[in-house]
């Protein structure tokens, strides 16, 4: 079985995001990057499937040079080889899907896993667009996955409902939180990953179909203030605040 996982390296959500005025993406200096959390579920699902059926597992990522760290992690988790499409620009979903499509269209993957969305942009479209481009079955938001010739998945719906579906392969699955417990790479696998094949390619992105107009924080809706100090100080602070807001 030929399996593909599409991953993205994203900024850690705890980072201090700063957007310079007029820019449409945040400044990346001083930020910590990680493998997108949803993609970890995708890698884990793909590795488990490979362990079940055997076969070959490729991981692909579109992004700047730093994204190779995310690929390394996927290799350490159990992927067999990595494809890094070097891209320094911020692509929108259609562009990303198109770039991946160009790379893999001739490969005939039986199953493709992606995260449900990226934690930085959260559009949730790359996987499904890729499925459409490949003209294969796609199912999103998967919280349970089984394979026995066909795939059987559960999707999480509104109101806590779950839909159970069966699909024929080839298929594309986008993975939701809770699908599995991503493994922690063992040291021998981390060391082996260093020797696994990694290819770096470039691929011209198609023209963007949408334009980001502006990026910035939402207007502040109010903030909590932690009142510290001894009891007396705390009480007088609270009284002062209440007075300030004419509440007392």
């Amino acid at each position: 079985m030929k399996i593909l996982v599409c991953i993205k390296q994203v900024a850690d959500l705890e980072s201090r995001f700063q957007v310079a005025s007029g820019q449409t993406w945040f400044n990346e200096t001083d930020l910590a990057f990680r493998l997108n959390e949803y993609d970890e579920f995708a890698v884990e699902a793909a590795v488990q499937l490979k362990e079940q059926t055997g076969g070959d597992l490729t991981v692909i990522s579109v992004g700047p040079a730093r994204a190779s760290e995310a690929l390394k992690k996927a290799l350490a988790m159990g992927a067999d080889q990595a494809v890094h499409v070097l891209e320094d620009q911020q692509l929108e979903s259609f562009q990303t899907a198109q770039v991946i499509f160009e790379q893999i269209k001739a490969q005939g993957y039986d199953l493709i896993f992606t995260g449900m969305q990226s934690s930085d942009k959260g559009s949730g479209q790359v996987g499904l667009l890729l499925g459409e481009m490949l003209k294969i079955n796609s199912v999103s938001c998967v919280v349970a996955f089984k394979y026995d010739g066909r795939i059987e998945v559960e999707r999480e719906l509104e109101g806590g409902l779950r839909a159970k579906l069966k699909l024929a392969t080839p298929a594309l699955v986008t993975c939701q939180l809770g699908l599995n417990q991503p493994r922690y790479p063992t040291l021998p696998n981390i060391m082996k990953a260093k020797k696994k094949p990694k290819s770096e390619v470039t691929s011209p992105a198609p023209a963007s179909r949408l334009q980001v107009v502006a990026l910035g924080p939402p207007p502040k809706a109010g903030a909590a203030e932690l009142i510290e100090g001894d009891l007396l100080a705390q009480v007088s602070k609270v009284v002062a605040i209440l007075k300030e807001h004419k509440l007392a």
Partner: protein
Amino acid sequence: MEATRQIYWNVSPLGLPVMYLLTALAMAVFFYGFFRRIKVYRQGKPLGRLDHLPKRIFRAVSEGLFQGKVSREKGIGELHQHFLWAFVILFIGTTLIFIETDILKPLFGVTFLKGDFYRVFSLALDLSGVVVLLMLGGMFTRRFWVKKIKLPPKPFDRIFYALLFLILLTGFGLEGLRMAVTETGIEPELVYYSPVGMYLGYYLQPLGWETLIAAHQGLWWLHMVMVMAWIALIPYTRLKHLVLTPINYALYDEHPFGHLPTINLEDETQESFGLAKPSDLGFKDIFDTDACTSCKRCEDRCPAFNTGKPLSPMLLVQQMGEVCFELKDGSLVDKIGKDALWACTTCGACQAICPAEVEHLPKIVGMRRNLVLMEGEFAGDEVAQAMDHLEVNANPLGSAPGTRADWAEGLGLVEPAEADWLYFPGCYASFDPRNQKVAKAFIKVAQAAGLKLAILGKAEKCCGEPARKMGNEYLYQNLAQANIEAFKSAGVKGIVTTCPHCFQTLGTAYKDLGLDIEVLHYTELIDQLWKDFKFKLNRIHLEVTYHDSCQLGRYGGIYDPPRNLLEACGADFREMKSHHADSFCCGAGGGRIMAEEKVGQRINQTRAKMALDLGADQLISSCPFCLTMFEDGVKGLEAEHKLKPRDLVELLADALPTLEERL
């Protein structure tokens, strides 16, 4: 006539040949008992502890004879120490008899057990016999009658005790019987050199010569056979420690306390990491499991055991021993249980007190390494999460690395090249608001003493200690390498930390990775500045107690500087129940700062309670982990208004004279 006695007086002609035969037999059983263990030890990796042999032998002899580690336990330790001294004198006496009767006299016709030497010899042996009996009585009473002392039973425990009692009693009996015939009333002066024998002799004399001689002969046989049986029993009972403990003293680790072997991650031939089975252990590890005398001093001090966690350092070592002695290379973790391994705070109280030189820490961390590096397992989801934060953000809290130096803005720090010391605040002082106050207080005091400090800022990463102690050597080394490169590229000459974990890791563990820079904990640095009259302190009036952090105290051996500084600011200082090398961990060591404490009582509350019981106003520590744990512990005990946890340097910063006061 010259003072002496006839050795082997009244022993029947058959006696000596039988005695030599039995000696040979007892020695054979004795040596077999030890030699058969060698194949067990050999399952492990080569020993590698035979360098500096003279130093090692010196330590074996000095610890063995002077019982420094043994006597650290009040009461029983001292009993054992005196028992051993008297026992050694008896042993020397017996050896002297052997040398005279079996070597010097038959070969050269030389005798030396005579005259004044005999008098000293006789008195020393007689009195030693009494001391041995008394101490043995004390140990026996503690062992079998004092209910709360529950030592795990070992084979023949009661039998070897009984045998030793009987050997001593029959020894005195023999002396009394012999003296009743040969000395009492005959050698009026010499009898005083065997006081016990003298009294027994006078008491027994009325029995008449014939009875005395017959009784002596019979008792001699009994005495001799019991001695041989006792010697033969040594390797099969708890008594094996007579041989194994001194050897283990010689095999001591020359590294600083708590040193963990650094895994070579470049070695691509290595396929298994950490300790999973006996063949992963070292010779010394397996020897340790055999040298353990199950005295349970470790267990008595273990913060995990004493708060109801499933870990006993003694049981752990013994379980490892059981797996090793099965000779099947079975699983260590299956025997011990993961929960026991994760419960350890690596506080080192067990290893520091162990009178048999057992090294618990590398074993526990070694087995954790196997779980983490080979199985990808952690103490809990929250620990996995913290590891993930460490990997991504270089701190276990998950804070943004770009904000690492925000706390230090406007504090007058300089560039590393211009600084007297590079201050390594570590993760807690950098990100945790409570500990940021400590960092600021430290800078205030250091600057008052005229020091120029710098920090690495955003280039600083977690020292890696919590990850390492939790078994994640790979993550630790990644963080360590990044820090070492940052130190080198900043041209750092000396480092000072407020965190004892950073202090130990940078100063000791990083040495294995090639960092050789002076690293001080602030308590040492400020104590020295104080002694050099570099700053002044006002007197403060507070009742305080001081908690020795494990990393600073047991690991670093730094006990006096913080106490000196408390004295310097005039605080009314009292010690808690456990202090110095016996300090009771706050619960955050061994990477447990990242873990939730789900089983048993809370360690931090247990420790805070000790300070509360003392009636102190403030619980002073000099470790961000301890401070964090105590802030939490005091809240848990609802004692915020009675006991305030603080860092020592906050106290000092408060005691700094204001500008007006200085003018």
